[in-house]
């Protein structure tokens, strides 16, 4: 456990050393300014557009950061043989892998929190300047941020899984991008087929294939709580709990297979 913690802290420090946080503060300022500019073109719903823009930018940035940071985590170290010394020590490989993932989670948490705080500041500034009484759905906004964090956590676990078998950093990058693209759309495609829009000539094999893909790949749409925050729609705590449970179990499964494969690997 101590070694896991040590790896996690080292990974977090790596993020700080890479001037990640300084860069994020700059992005945060840009986010505040650009939110005000972007929402000013709205005719009837500037606050909704501002919340939409803030959450979408945080989502896109977090996914990009996850992809690049996740790859730096282990794959680059394996490429440059930096971690060979550590792995030759009498430390379980599972500790190394899980510790690294823990550090990655801390970094992603910092990214989402910092950007989220900047967004909330920007949105509160907008509301203070608005005419009439405007309410800001803070808890729903935080839930949407939590959804983004869980999406990134799952994507990070997938990167770790592919890294545990890959011999270069390109393979896990491409595979993770593919899994993200599929996972983000499986629900949409499945619902589209279920709606009957595809017609009777749609092969049943494809229908079955879509169902299999839906079950195997992560369903990122489950963590999309943006609409609740944008329009202040009624939000169920049970939905959040189910999503969190799904996310945690999916990450656990990915890490389990990653550890099994990484332990069998020749380095």
């Amino acid at each position, binding site marked *: 456990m101590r070694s896991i913690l040590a790896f996690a802290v080292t990974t977090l420090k790596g993020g700080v050393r890479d001037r990640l946080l300084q860069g994020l503060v700059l992005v945060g300022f840009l986010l505040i300014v650009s939110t005000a500019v972007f929402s000013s073109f709205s005719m009837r719903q500037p606050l909704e557009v501002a919340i939409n823009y803030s959450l979408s930018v945080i*989502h896109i940035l977090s996914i990009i950061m996850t992809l690049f940071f996740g790859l730096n985590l282990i794959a680059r170290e394996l490429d440059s043989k930096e971690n060979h010394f550590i792995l030759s020590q009498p430390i379980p490989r599972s500790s190394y892998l899980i510790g690294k993932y823990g550090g990655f989670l801390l970094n992603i948490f910092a990214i989402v929190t910092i950007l989220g705080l900047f967004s909330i500041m920007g949105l509160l500034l907008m509301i203070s300047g608005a005419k009439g009484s405007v309410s800001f759905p803070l808890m729903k906004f935080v839930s949407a941020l939590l959804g983004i964090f869980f999406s990134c956590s799952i994507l990070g676990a997938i990167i770790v899984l592919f890294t545990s078998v890959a011999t270069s950093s390109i393979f896990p990058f491409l595979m993770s991008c593919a899994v993200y693209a599929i996972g983000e*759309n499986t629900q949409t495609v499945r619902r589209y087929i279920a709606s009957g829009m595809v017609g009777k000539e749609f092969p049943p094999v494809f229908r079955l294939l879509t169902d299999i893909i839906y079950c195997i790949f992560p369903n990122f749409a489950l963590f999309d709580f943006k609409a609740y925050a944008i329009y202040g729609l009624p939000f169920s705590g049970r939905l959040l709990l189910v999503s969190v449970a799904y996310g945690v179990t999916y990450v656990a499964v990915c890490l389990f297979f990653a550890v099994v494969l990484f332990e069998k690997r020749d380095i």
Partner: protein
Amino acid sequence: MKRIGLGILLLLLVALTTYYYPKLQRAYEPSLRLHRLPPAFALKISSFGNKELMATLIFYNTEFYFGEKAGFRKETPELKLIYDALNKATDLDPRNMDCYYFAQGTLSWIKPAIPVLNKLLEKGFKHRPWDWYLPFFIGVNYYFQLKDPVHAAKYMKKAARLNPRSPVLATLAARMLYQGNQTQAGIIYLKSLIRETTNPLFRKKFEKRLHALEAIYFLERGIKRYEEKFGKSPLEIHDLMRTGIIRKTPVDPYGGMFYIGKDGRVYTTSKLAEGWSKDERHKDRKIRKSVPKRGS
């Protein structure tokens, strides 16, 4: 020293080209088009979980197109493509009020567009059941364009129930129910829109229509006075001037000419319309050529 001179020269060149290129660009740039978007399903997939942002971006693209086409270039925007873009944007995010508001602002003046516009607004009302604007818009479209006061009053009552504080809604609902003066109801509606809108281009559009309706209302009151005075209806607008009831015919801001229809009501050759399609615009031009006379 040489480097500073070169730097200043380069800056001057940039300033010079920045000054000149907008003029050249205006002279050579092709006609502004709003491109047809792929199906909503494809847009949803390519948004990677940010369909609300994608819907906003489609709306902004449509809004900027309309602004540049109608406001900057003074050309007729392609309203069918505007509808297509807004319909797809609301398929991605059916709660995006900007899209419905913009659709009402641009398409509600064109009669052939009303069935599809009302369908779009119905979609909005289904997903924004708390928003009084949507039934208000649907009611207005039923009343003024489809001449269906029963449906109009049904929606106006829904709007009044959602916004009980608004005196305008209650007044309009009552007028629609009792089939009162349509022009007066239109003036009330437009004044409420002008009060609420923040967009200068839309405000200009609403004010133009308000001026036209005020002119029609002015003529309608003239006809009423003529009927009271002479016990019969005037055949043409000129009769009102000849008898001294009005001093001059008001100007139609849409470029048409006012005339009295067979039913005794005031019409204009412009139909107060901006084209939904090219065919419609041609039809308008043909009508404008001959001002119909009552009784002819």
